[in-house]
């Protein structure tokens, strides 16, 4: 931790820490892809039941950092992560932690809707099945229905649960992916540009959904759209060239940025 770095100081919310609202606590995280230093000493507190947006120009490392939070970077051979990331105070990079179990607690939704080429039902039921979350068929049915309801998709698909998930429209597919992610009852939901491949109407539906998800989950969303960040998030982090430049309440970031780079970005001068 580098107290002289103003961003680091900003990113750590001491009152929230004291109140125990911090869900994920990251300290001094560095990521290397081979020789490329992709994330430079990032420290961040992600609060519970809050939407946190990561913004920044392409290649700034926001997606890379997001993927550290559920150890998806482990699947890339050349990626190396140092520093400390704690979920509810528990170090997720500790030797005893199984990334597979972690990913059930920290769900993820990707940029492009990627339903499995299976039925809608099986898409949602897959996570609970592999984690043994349902003891009976009725339990599983309930998980599927509840997840689809929370993803605001149930009414559209309840009569065709056995049809392939790939046959849905793009927006429906993405909500199906959200249903799939929340079926394992995660505590944190990571979203990597979840609306960038969708039309404006589907995007609005997803944004509305994110706002509802906030009641139960801690949501972290990476987005290219500053309007989107402003609409859905309570807290915003601005990344630039692998560094966390500024982190704070969303209105403050957009109306009164403290760092000149943040100001340049949100006024469209870098990006």
């Amino acid at each position, binding site marked *: 931790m580098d107290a002289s770095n103003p961003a680091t100081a900003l990113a750590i919310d001491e009152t929230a820490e004291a109140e125990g609202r911090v869900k994920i606590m990251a300290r001094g995280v560095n990521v290397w892809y081979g020789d490329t230093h992709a994330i430079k000493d990032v420290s961040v507190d992600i609060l519970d039941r809050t939407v946190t947006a990561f913004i920044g120009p392409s290649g700034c490392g926001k997606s890379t950092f997001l993927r550290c939070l559920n150890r998806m970077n482990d699947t890339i051979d050349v990626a190396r992560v140092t520093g400390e990331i704690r979920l509810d105070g528990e170090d997720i990079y500790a030797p005893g932690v199984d990334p597979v179990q972690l990913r059930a607690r920290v769900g993820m939704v990707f940029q*492009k809707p990627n339903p499995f080429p299976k039925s809608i039902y099986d898409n949602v039921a897959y996570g609970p099945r592999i984690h043994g979350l349902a003891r009976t068929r009725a339990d599983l049915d309930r998980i599927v229905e509840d997840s689809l309801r929370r993803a605001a998709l149930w009414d559209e698909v309840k009569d065709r649960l056995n049809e392939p998930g790939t046959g849905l429209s793009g927006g429906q597919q993405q909500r199906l*992916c959200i249903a799939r992610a929340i079926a394992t009852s995660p505590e944190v939901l990571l979203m990597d540009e979840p609306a960038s491949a969708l039309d404006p109407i589907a995007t609005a539906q997803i944004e509305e959904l994110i706002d509802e998800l906030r009641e139960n989950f801690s949501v972290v969303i990476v987005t290219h759209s500053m309007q989107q960040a402003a609409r859905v998030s309570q807290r915003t982090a601005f990344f630039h060239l692998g560094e966390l430049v500024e982190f704070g309440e969303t209105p403050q970031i957009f109306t009164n940025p403290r760092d000149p780079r943040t100001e340049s970005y949100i006024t469209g001068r870098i990006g």
Partner: protein
Amino acid sequence: MTDTTPTLHGIARPSAQEAARHLARRKRRQRRLVAYGLAAIAFAFLMLAILVGSLVVSGAKAFVQTHVTLEVFVDPAEIRADRLPRGGFKDVLQAALQKQIPGIEDRKDAKRLLGILSNGAQFMLRDMVVADPSLIGETIKLTVPVSDPYDQLAKGEIDPETPEEFRRLKDDEIAWFRTLEEKGLVSMPFNWALFTNADSRFPELAGLKGALMGSFWALLVCFVISFPLGIGAAIYLEEFGRKNRVADIIEVNINNLAAVPSVVFGLLALAVFLGWFGLPRSAPLVGGMTLALMTLPTIIIATRAALKAVPPSIREAALGVGASNQQVVFHHVLPLAMPGILTGTIIGLAQALGETAPLLLIGMNAFITSAPASPMDAATALPTQIFIWADSPERGFVARTSAAILVLLGFLIAMNALAIFLRARFERKW
């Protein structure tokens, strides 16, 4: 189109004629390229047509076989129920022929007369009588194949204008056969023996059953070994193995293995399977193991390509909900890659079906007159059977060689068609 304003760079624009010439040249070049392509395809088709055409022309005659129908009196004086299966079956047939062509008294001529019938005729009669001894004393109608020279005569392959000493059939023999033809006793039905008989020294009796069964067993062994091994190796290399120097070396060597001449695999099998492990010679088991060595790289390469073609988004989706690596592979990636894997496997097996050289080295070109009942029995395979027949001097084997090639090509076309069908039916577009 008389635009005389200079270009952006201040150079005068080409005149209309120059531009037209330039355009014409470009179009001409494109037309020429298309013409080359069409010519290449036409040439390939022409060659294929010539190949198949010549095979059909020379092989068609092997799909029918001249038979003669005789009324045979199963003489109790020659054939006795208590001495079966021995008996004077030859004499009975000779008597039946002499009844049709009277006036042959000389013993030598009578023996030559019997030469009209295939050597297998007496055994067919014997098997009938052994199966039903009540036939003794009866007169039965018997349809048997004629021997190869008469078969050729019936099919017009022997020219009666040739001087007698250069002909395989003498004038009187031709006359005998013509008499039988005039009496309506000669027929030319479909040659089922080509598929129901194993190999024989006599072309009229030789069939492909042994080779078909040999190829079937060899391919079965090849599939059972190479399919799980190939997929296992590919899954490890593609999904679990580290991508480092060792992996690169393995990759290069698998690609090299796919290019090793097949005869080398034959020598390896001879040294290792027969020499060290003492496995039986000529057995489809060994043939299949040898072919599996050759098919393995094909399957590994096809499987790796199919696994690679599964989009990373599916892997991420599965990993994202907390699937382990193994679950990602077996629940998602492998099922999606299966059509590609099956296509590659079938094409690999089709290659193996046509492979000759390694089978020659492990003795699958032996002369074997019974079809193998298990992979441990000595057998030939389709390509080695073609090799054996192509080497045989009898005229009847010429047509049979072509017929066997047609059968082999038929199987290859069927397998490749199946591969294309599977690909079209199950392949997913992303």
